[in-house]
């Protein structure tokens, strides 16, 4: 069972790595933001697997925070600022 979790964590890490390539390559800023969302989701998955693997239930809280704050980052990306005389 532990090996399966380790393998799955490795698979997710690979997925994160592929997202990393897109963050570094992606021609537009939207591609990079999108890949950051992937990194966030993969991170959530990895943390959930680690929480069972390392027997640390607090990592589930970290995963929750990661999910919520990836949303905050995406929100920050799209906020339209008011100009000075709005």
């Amino acid at each position, binding site marked *: *069972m532990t090996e*399966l*979790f380790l393998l*799955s964590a490795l*698979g*997710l890490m*690979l*997925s994160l790595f*592929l*997202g990393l*390539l*897109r963050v570094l390559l992606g021609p*537009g*800023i*939207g*591609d990079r*933001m*999108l*890949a950051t*969302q*992937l990194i966030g*989701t*993969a991170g*959530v*998955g990895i943390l*959930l*697997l680690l*929480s*069972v693997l390392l027997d640390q*239930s607090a990592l*589930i*809280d970290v*995963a*929750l925070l990661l*999910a*919520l704050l*990836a*949303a905050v980052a*995406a*929100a920050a*990306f*799209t906020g339209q600022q008011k100009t000075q005389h709005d």
Partner: protein
Amino acid sequence: MINILSSILILSGVFFYLAGSIGLLRLPDLYSRLHALTKADNLGLGLLIAGVALHSQDLLMMLKLLLIWLAVLAASATSAHLIARQARRQETGS
């Protein structure tokens, strides 16, 4: 029995994750990549959470996992839209 079911769920979750990431790398432009990412990744995460939930020790942990899943679903759907709209704005020049 639980181990077998959990293993199947987790492995298929990882498969969908990898599929989504490969799609992210291979598809031609932003909008198609958004499709690949939001659909495949969320399905992968859902399966993964279902697999991990079978190992959970108490009700609170299961509820937290459910909350994570719902939050990621709603957040990634919304952020996919927002990212696409932002890209569209930049294309049409604002």
